[in-house]
Every structure is written in C-alpha cells, then in structure tokens.
C-alpha cells in the first residue's frame, strides 16, 4: 500500500450522495464528519454521521458553498481529507486549491486539472492537441455576429450556441437558419452572463437527436489511467438526466474500446487523477464527439459500479491516499446490465414542479438486483432550498430485459406518501415500446411526454379504493390520526426496549 489511509473524512455535501460517501467511509473504517445547514439538522446524513457541524443558513452560498466555513470544520474536526460529492463545490478549483493550502487532501483531481477542464473552450483547445474528436465548430468564444455567421456558413446549419462556462442547458440555443443567429447569440450571451457571470459563447454544428454517452475513467496519482465502460444518458428532460444505464445498448466492444482510449487520452492530456467522466455526443451513424469532462463523481456512478463490481468511492479515497490503481485495464470486465432512476420530489401532473414537504409514509423496495441510494426517511420534511433529488433506484440483471423487469417490479413496491414524486414517470418509461427496443436519443423523453398517456381506468380498482376509503374512515386511520398512533407506538416500544435492557443488565450481573 502506498501512502497512508485517512483517519477522518469531511463530507462537504448533503442528501443521498453524502450518505453514499459516509457509507464508504464506514466500510473502510474511516470516521465521517458531516456539515449541515440550518434546515438540514434532521437530514439523514447528519443522523448517520460520526461528527456533525452546523455551517449556517439554508442558502447554499452561506453553507454548502461557503469555503471558509467548511475548511474551519475540517480544522476543528481534524479531518485529513474532504470528499466534495457532486454539485456544490465538487468542481470548484478554488476550493481544491484552498484545501491544498490548508493541508487537507481534496478527494478529486488537482486544481490545475480542474482548471484545464472547467471551461469548455479551454478543454477543447487542450483536447484538439491530443487528437480527440470534436463536433465541428469554434474552439474559442465567438467575438462577433459576423464571425459566428462565417463559421455557421462553413459548417452548415443547424448550429448550436453554447456557454463556455455552461452546464444544465443554460446559455444554449439551437439555430436553424442564418436569420436567427444574431438574436440567438444575444440571448445566449445574456443568459450565460446571468447564470455563470461569463458571457463567452461558442458555436458548433448541431447534431439532431444525438445520444449522450459518457465514459467513466479512473486515474491514480502515479500516471495510471483506466476506463470502466460507458453509461447511456440519453433520457433527459430540459438537458437534465432522468434515467441512465450501463452498458449502452448501442455500444459494442469495438466502439467501447475506441471511446475508452479517447477518454484515457483526455485524462492523460489534462494530467488528471481520481474519478472523472468524459461525455460524448453520438450521432445516428455511431460517430462520437467529445462534449466535456466532469471532474467529479457522477450522480449515476452506481450503474458502473454494478456492472464492473467496483466501488468507485472506495477507489476515489484510496487514490487520494496515494495508492496505485489496484487493477489494470485488461482486468476490467463488464457483467450484466444496470439502470438507474432518479427519484425526484416533483409533480408529474404539474409540469414537474418541485414538491417538497413531509414524507408521511415510505415503503421501499428490496429483493434481487435492487440497489437504493437514498437520502430520505419517513417523517422527514424535504426542505424547499435544494435540488429535489430524493434517492436513486437502481436495477441490475444479467441482461437489459431482466434489469428492466426487476426495476419495474421494484417501482411497484416503492411508495412515497405526503409529497409528489416522479415514480410514475419511470413506470411509463420502462413500459414504453421504444425504450424496450433501446431506440434512445436525447429527444426521447420530450416526444414520449407529448403523447397523451393511455390511462385505462380499472373499474374494479376504483371500487377497491371506495371500500378502502370507508374502512380507513371507520378505523380513523387518516394520515393525521395514524401519525399520533405511530408516536404512541414509538414510546410504547421505547418502554419495551428499556425493559428489555433492564432485563439483560440483570442477566449480565448474574
């Protein structure tokens, strides 16, 4: 073993990913320190932590994005490393640098590698040197409307305008013809300025109905890099991923090797270390183009874990501690198929508007091939202040059909009461004939949601509901009355538990 394993890791995040990292720490015998904002005192990551420190008010700028406060907790707790999770500070090179300056190991790439990849235009310039395939376009921000018009005329319409500092679809505009270019450029610039404080916008050929496929890589701090196979992330709503799977049904062994080689070249060109993801756009002819690199653990990392048998968070921690990669490229074997559903607190009947609130009832699936990474529990109130991701439900099977079957079964067992969730959306996706046939592209979800759902009402189920409504009313088992009874029962079982403890103590004394 190289280096010295950490004794204590600070997790600078919240929600399901904080719990995910915390579990890895405990599995490795490492104490887990968490931070929380005023509205997160009751959050699951605080309940499960070894040490927990309040860091301020609900707005992320005053808590989860506040670098001095987080580094102060690292110092006070004596943590020797910080895991940033995803989102928040995970791709902030200034934070990685501040950690280094404070003598705390940042579990992720170096600030220099993050800087190289942080701007889409700068990443593109570096990657062109490394011979990485790109969508035709500019590798720098366009200076003027005239320049944009010249480039667009050369590569041909339709073209896409994108913010250099962008992400999540902000500052993006699809332009079908020359007469729309000027107004679209202005709109993209002002949106980029508002969203990222940087109005740099570049232009590239628009690929219609592309697939979004990404390659997971791991690199140690001794120059070794491997790829761990791809993830198919084409199912998106408003440029946000909704469902991911691995492997991609479109990628065969040869294409995987070619994409993997490019991904490793990208990582090496940036002197990259730790876990990272190279995103590609793939056209209908299976040409793939470098899109961007995400310099962090991804939300959808579990699907890769299931098909490779590796634990990416364990490996991130070991790499950060200075260990060499414990395997080589030829040792990586993909087995089976995994699909992830992102369970959000949002209302499918109201344009997917966030639906925070108190979870009054939580029934969770289990059984063969099911993994749940969750940050919620029954009785917890989902705060209104953050991203509404509650949990990830992942199905694994020997092949895609079995993974779909298991996930469909698990979704029917999943129930989150008191708030609205998008669970019904996944039931619809998994039952869709085109999804089952793996006819996927980034326009899939918009097209599916435009079709009206075929809701055959079962008159028998309606009668069952009517009878149940009466029985619930008779039993006084409304949600409110039930909550009171649950409290009574908790105190009763506490009393029983303490009696049992008394008894066992007496037994122990004998």
């Amino acid at each position, binding site marked *: 073993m190289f280096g010295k394993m950490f004794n204590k890791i600070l997790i600078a995040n919240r929600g399901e990913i904080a719990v995910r990292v915390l579990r890895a720490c405990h599995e490795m015998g490492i104490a887990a320190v968490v931070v929380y904002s005023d509205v997160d005192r009751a959050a699951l990551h605080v309940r499960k932590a070894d040490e927990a420190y309040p860091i301020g008010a609900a707005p992320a700028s005053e808590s989860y994005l506040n670098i001095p406060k987080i580094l102060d907790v690292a110092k006070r707790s004596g943590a020797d490393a910080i895991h940033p999770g995803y989102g928040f500070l995970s791709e902030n090179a200034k934070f990685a640098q501040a950690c280094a300056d404070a003598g705390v190991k940042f579990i992720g790439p170096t600030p220099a590698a993050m800087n190289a990849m942080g701007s889409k235009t700068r990443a593109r310039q570096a990657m062109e040197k490394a011979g990485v395939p790109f969508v035709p376009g500019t590798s720098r921000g366009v200076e003027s409307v005239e320049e944009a018009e010249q480039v667009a005329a050369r590569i041909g319409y339709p073209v896409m305008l994108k913010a250099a500092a962008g992400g999540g679809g902000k500052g993006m505009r699809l332009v079908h013809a020359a007469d729309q270019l000027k107004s679209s450029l202005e709109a993209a610039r002002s949106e980029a300025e508002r969203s990222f404080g940087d109005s740099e916008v570049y232009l590239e050929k628009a690929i219609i109905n592309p697939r979004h496929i990404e390659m997971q890589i791991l690199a140690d701090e001794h120059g070794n890099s491997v790829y761990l196979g791809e993830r198919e992330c084409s199912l998106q709503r408003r440029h946000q991923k909704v469902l991911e799977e691995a492997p991609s049904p479109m990628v065969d062994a040869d294409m995987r090797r070619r994409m993997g080689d490019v991904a490793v070249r990208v990582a090496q060109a940036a002197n990259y270390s730790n876990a990272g993801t190279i995103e590609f756009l793939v056209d209908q002819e299976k040409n793939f183009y470098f899109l961007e690199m995400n310099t962090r653990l991804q939300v959808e990392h579990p699907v890769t874990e299931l098909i490779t048998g590796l634990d990416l968070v364990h490996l991130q921690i070991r790499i950060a501690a200075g260990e060499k990669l414990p395997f080589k490229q030829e040792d990586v074997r993909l087995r089976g198929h995994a699909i992830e559903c992102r369970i959000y607190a949002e209302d499918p009947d109201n344009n997917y508007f966030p639906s925070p609130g108190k979870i009054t009832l939580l029934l969770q699936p289990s059984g063969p091939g099911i993994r749940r990474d969750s940050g919620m529990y029954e009785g917890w109130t989902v705060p209104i202040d953050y991203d509404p991701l509650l949990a990830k439900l992942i199905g694994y099977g020997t092949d895609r059909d079995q993974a779909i079957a298991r996930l469909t079964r698990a979704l029917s067992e999943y129930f989150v009461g008191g708030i609205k969730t998008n669970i019904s959306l996944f039931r619809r996706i998994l039952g869709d004939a085109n999804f089952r046939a793996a006819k996927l592209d980034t326009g899939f979800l918009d097209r599916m949601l435009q079709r009206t759902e075929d809701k055959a009402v079962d008159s028998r189920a309606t009668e069952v509901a009517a009878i149940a409504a009466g029985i*619930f009313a008779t039993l006084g088992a409304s949600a409110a009355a039930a909550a009171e009874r649950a409290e009574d029962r908790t105190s009763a079982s506490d009393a029983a538990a303490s009696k049992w403890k008394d008894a066992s103590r007496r037994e122990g004394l004998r």
Partner: protein
Amino acid sequence: MLYDVTIDGKNYRLELNRADGRWSCRLDGRDIEVDAILARPDVLSLRIGNMAYEVKSERVASELHLWVGSTRFAAEVRDPRSLRGRARAGEAQGPKKIVAPMPGKVVRLLVREGDEVAAGTGLAVVEAMKMQNEIKSPKKGTVQKILVSEGAAVNAGDVLLIVE
C-alpha cells in the same frame, strides 16, 4: 356506518359494519365480501373475495389520495347524515379557497382584493426549490380576500386567497 364516497369523480354509497373483527360491506346495494387488516398506519391489506390488494392512504396539501397498487385515486368520504357532509357537497358554488400546492415563498401577488378574475387568471407566484409556480384561479369571480403578503413563507394547504 354509512358513507358517501367519491373516487376520481365517481360517487358510491357505502355501508360498512364491523363486528368481532369481521366486516360486512354493501357498495351501491351489492353485498361484497371484505377482509381488511391495517398493516401499519396508512397501509391497508384488503381481501375482496380471494383477490388481495394493498391500499395506501396519503394527504397531499388538502387532498386525500388512495393508491391501489400503483394507481392513484382522489378520494372524498362524507357522512351523508352530517351537516358538514352536506355543506361540503355545495362548496363548488360558493367562495373558493385558493391554497398553496406546496411549501414555499410567496414571491408575487398578481391581483388585489376586489379584482375580477377569469378562470385561469394568475393570482400569485409561489417559489420552491428555485422554481416559480403561478397559482391560477380555478373559476371566474372576484378576489374576496388575500390572506398572505409578498415574501411570506407558506406550507402546503395554507389558504392564500379566496375567490368568490
């Protein structure tokens, strides 16, 4: 017990009686063999004949939902003999309370007391999780009363305003 039950807009008359842990059930005059166990609060294990069902109950804002398997039904249960039941049945014609569909912050009020509104007119904007949601009037009428101010934090089900 006698109930008027509405499930997704369909009305039923339900008679339920329990003696010695056994239920007798008449739905719209038909006798139905029912066996029910409350597995845990809000979860009912039902047998109707030999068919088995798991039914979940939840309240979201002020609505009661029952889930039979993975299908959601909006439910209303009234005691036909109580005054409250009768008052509720007539609610559609009277003043309509506009409630917050989710917890959040009132960022803007779009109307003033006394304003005439059409069905679909925006009344207020509520923000949660960085998204803004416009609350629209469900009917034509007059804004009778506004119960919140801009900037107020509201919970799901809180009455924002009343449209008469």
